[in-house]
């Protein structure tokens, strides 16, 4: 089969005519679309403080966790290192640590999230 034959066959594809109601059907859909209110954008300005607090809390948690584990890591003998040994040392270090600070921080975060939630929903009413 030559290129010319191929061109002739593929150029002679059937053409179809849209059905008589096609344009009207499209316009109905378009009008419905136009009448639909635009989607509510995500409230970034309201969510931003919460996100910042959340990220800061997570970072603080990681730093505190690492600080808590540091003595345990230092106490582990690198020659005889094993994960259960490290976890046991970490548990001892955690028991020694004062838990009051963590409880206070958790309460504070909870109160802050409740406060921001009320403020966000209350201001819309």
């Amino acid at each position: 089969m030559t290129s010319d034959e191929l061109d002739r066959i593929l150029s002679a594809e059937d053409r179809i005519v849209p059905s008589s109601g096609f344009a009207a059907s499209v316009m109905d859909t378009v009008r419905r679309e136009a009448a639909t209110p635009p989607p509510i954008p995500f409230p970034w300005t309201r969510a931003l403080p919460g996100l910042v607090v959340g990220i800061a809390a997570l970072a603080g948690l990681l730093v505190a966790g690492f600080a808590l584990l540091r003595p345990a890591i230092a106490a582990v003998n690198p020659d005889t290192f094993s994960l259960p040994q490290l976890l046991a040392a970490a548990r001892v270090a955690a028991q020694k640590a004062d838990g009051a600070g963590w409880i206070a921080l958790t309460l504070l975060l909870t109160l802050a999230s409740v406060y921001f939630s009320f403020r966000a929903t209350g201001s819309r009413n």
Partner: protein
Amino acid sequence: MSATEDQADVEKVLAGDTSAFEGIVRRWQGPIVNLAYRFCRDRARAEDMAQDAFLRAFRTLASWRREAAFSTWLFALATNLFRTDLRRIPIHPLTLADIPELRDPRAIDGGLECEDRDRVVREAVYALPAKYREAILLFYFHEMDVPAAARSLALPEGTFKARLFRGREVLRSKLARVRVSPGLSEEVP
């Protein structure tokens, strides 16, 4: 098709006159439905796909940059949508090996009638890998205008030409044995 009419209708739609979009639909319904039909070979599905394309065009009309023709923008948008639709729901999982006339050359030793030969050629196009099939479909839809077809597929012309060349080579090699019965070739218009 008038570019100034398109531009005027677009301006009106963007200014809030939704009914002006009807002019765009009426001017472009034929080409867009036919483009969809080339992709899916199913009239009902082609109209559904074309309707989705017009709706997408209405939603994103503001993104048409005036340096390109409205038709170029509309064809690129529609082509992109049709390709996605066909990837989601393929028309049929046909391969070149599924076409009996290509699988068993003995069956065509006596030659095919013109219309059978044309059907085999078209079926072979639909059995090509998507990137070659799309290049060939768009090339012939745009009446062998390479720049227009490449723009519709959002491809550089070089890439488009390479795909077109490769697709036609595959087709020619697969269709090498297909020939029209002696005595019938004169009937080819």
